[in-house]
């Protein structure tokens, strides 16, 4: 078990190195490959008042003329031990964990990330709980009552669910619930610590919108898995030895049908942050996804880079945790 965990940890660290290098490459090599000179990049930073002196200053400040690896090393150094940023003649020390400064507002990127993260996580966690519960329950009931009205209705809904873009369901739900029927307030983020009740009330629509898509996928997957498992010989054996049907379904059927679902859940947690960008835009929540979009549209590369890196880190850690939990639950995994 210890050896398994160590091995997974090493893989995670390696992955982190690869991902950070690739992300850094996207932001700093790709424009160069596409034929943009460092002057073009510096001009984007300057905005309207482009002068030769300004360009030279910006290039020196941002280290645009340094080689890729030097800049990557500078960035990594900043995260672990902090680094110095030269602004003209003055030098600003940026203590670890430093991810640079926003080109536009000069705020430290790390602070921006910390600021926005709670919003994105609030959306993601609530949605994940909701879709896992709803998706698995609907899938199980559908499988057990295969062909019934419930099954057909739920599966039609699920098919509609995977075919509806999240931003459309989001807009329609705001229109219906906040404007037409006025059941809910127009969602806007309130801190959890302030008042958990208003926090949840404001988040219901984003949760449901995001969860609807995933719940539909999980219902379809769970149903297929349950149908297969319930046809196995050991289910017949369990019934034959007189177990109550409830135990047969939950302890023998569901437990085995859920294993692949958990794997997919681990993967989806990571993808969820991508989905959160759309949810945040739809509901105008200022989370990490909005920060990312802002970074891109305003050519604020350090901010966009910071969000992408943070997401990569989160995904790798989430997968590591799922892998380890999985190995605890299913001993066969450790040997693979």
């Amino acid at each position, binding site marked *: 078990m210890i050896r398994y965990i160590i091995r997974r940890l090493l893989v995670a660290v390696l992955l982190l190195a690869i991902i950070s290098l690739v992300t850094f490459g996207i932001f700093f090599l*790709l424009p160069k490959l596409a034929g943009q000179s460092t002057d073009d990049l510096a001009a984007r930073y300057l905005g309207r008042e482009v002068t030769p002196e300004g360009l030279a200053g910006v290039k020196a400040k941002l280290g645009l003329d340094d080689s890729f690896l030097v800049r990557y090393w500078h960035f990594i150094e900043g995260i672990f031990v902090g680094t110095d940023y030269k602004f003209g003649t003055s030098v600003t020390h940026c203590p670890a964990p430093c991810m640079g400064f926003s080109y536009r507002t000069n705020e430290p990127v790390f602070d921006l990330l910390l600021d926005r993260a709670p919003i994105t996580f609030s959306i993601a966690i609530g949605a994940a709980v909701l879709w896992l519960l709803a998706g698995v329950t609907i899938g199980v009931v559908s499988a057990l009552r295969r062909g019934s009205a419930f099954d057909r209705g739920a599966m039609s809904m699920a098919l509609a669910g995977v075919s509806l873009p999240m931003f459309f369901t989001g807009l329609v739900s705001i229109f219906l619930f906040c404007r037409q029927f006025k059941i809910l307030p127009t969602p806007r983020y309130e801190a959890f610590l302030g008042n958990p009740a208003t926090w949840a009330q404001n988040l219901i629509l984003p949760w449901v919108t995001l969860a609807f898509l995933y719940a539909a996928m999980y219902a379809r997957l769970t149903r297929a898995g349950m149908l297969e498992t319930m046809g196995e010989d050991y289910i017949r054996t369990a019934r034959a030895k007189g177990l109550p049907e409830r135990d047969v379904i939950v302890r023998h059927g569901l437990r085995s049908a859920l294993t692949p679902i958990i794997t997919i859940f681990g993967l989806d947690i990571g993808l969820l942050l991508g989905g959160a960008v759309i949810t945040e*835009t739809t509901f105008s929540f200022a989370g990490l996804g909005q920060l990312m979009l802002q970074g891109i549209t305003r050519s604020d590369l350090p901010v966009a880079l910071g969000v992408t890196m943070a997401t990569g880190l989160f995904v790798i850690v989430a997968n590591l945790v799922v892998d380890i939990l999985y190995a605890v639950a299913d001993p066969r995994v450790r040997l693979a």
Partner: protein
Amino acid sequence: MTAPIEVSGSETEAQPDAVLAGVDRKAIQGRSLGQIAWLRLKRDKVAIGGGIVVMLLILMAVVGPFLVGDPNQPHNDLIDPMLSRPKTGIMHSGISSHHWLGVDLPAGRDMLSRIVNGAKYSLIISFLATILAVVLGVFFGVVAGYFGGWVDTLIARTMDIFLAFPLLLFAIALVGVFPDSAFGLSGNGLRVAFLIFVIGFFSWPYIGRIIRGQTLSLREREFVDAARSMGARAPYILFRELLPNLWAPILVYATLMIPTNIIFEASLSFLGVGIKAPTPSWGGMLNEAKEVYEVAPHFMFFPGMAIFITVLAFNLFGDGLRDALDPRSSR
């Protein structure tokens, strides 16, 4: 999957007279697996319905833009400047005999024209991106599955990494840092080409993983051994022996990948990093509608429904195709 030996449908071949005396000749007609799949598909009304809608959508995207007029023609006279919404039509949508789906805001451009032209971009991008993803996915999937060893480990791990990452974020990053002109292209052409590349590049692992799995089991089959024992080299086995046996999963997953890519493109356009205004795109229209849907809900409704109907039709057809081509599948 086709069987290694094709059973031809000719009636004379399959009729030893002694056995057949008194048997209806049609009853034992030989059928290829492709014919059987077609028969199964024909019986699936829902899938056929989806297929017909798909055909109509393609037709609309091809000939529609010539029929509906300029999508960027403003009709300021139809907009009420005080309330900033269309003056006429049900629920102030501007729906009339000239504008079947009303007009948008604030310029009063014809919605039907924008949706039809949006279909063109949506379908072009999702089709070409799917082709790119299928080519990459099949190539790497077959190579990984057939060669095994470190080649397989490398490709399979790469696919795992791709699958585990929020590709939407990476796609946004890529689109965002990409300059407005490059490789001799600029403007819309470059955007479309770049979107095709980004979407295709990020979705190949989905099909790659499936093809790899299929190849793993196919390579142990006798006809591969036979080819190898006759001295066939790897490229011949990969593309002449294995590939023809993979057409069923390729077809099914390509069909199911198109709707995913339609949503991918619409999401990017919705987020403002896809097709650039004023070029019409469904995602872009929803983005514009986001600000004004309270006064003009039709502006949000029609593009959303366009995406929904298109994606649903592809999903229904793809599901039916999978059921028809996979004899083991059941519902």
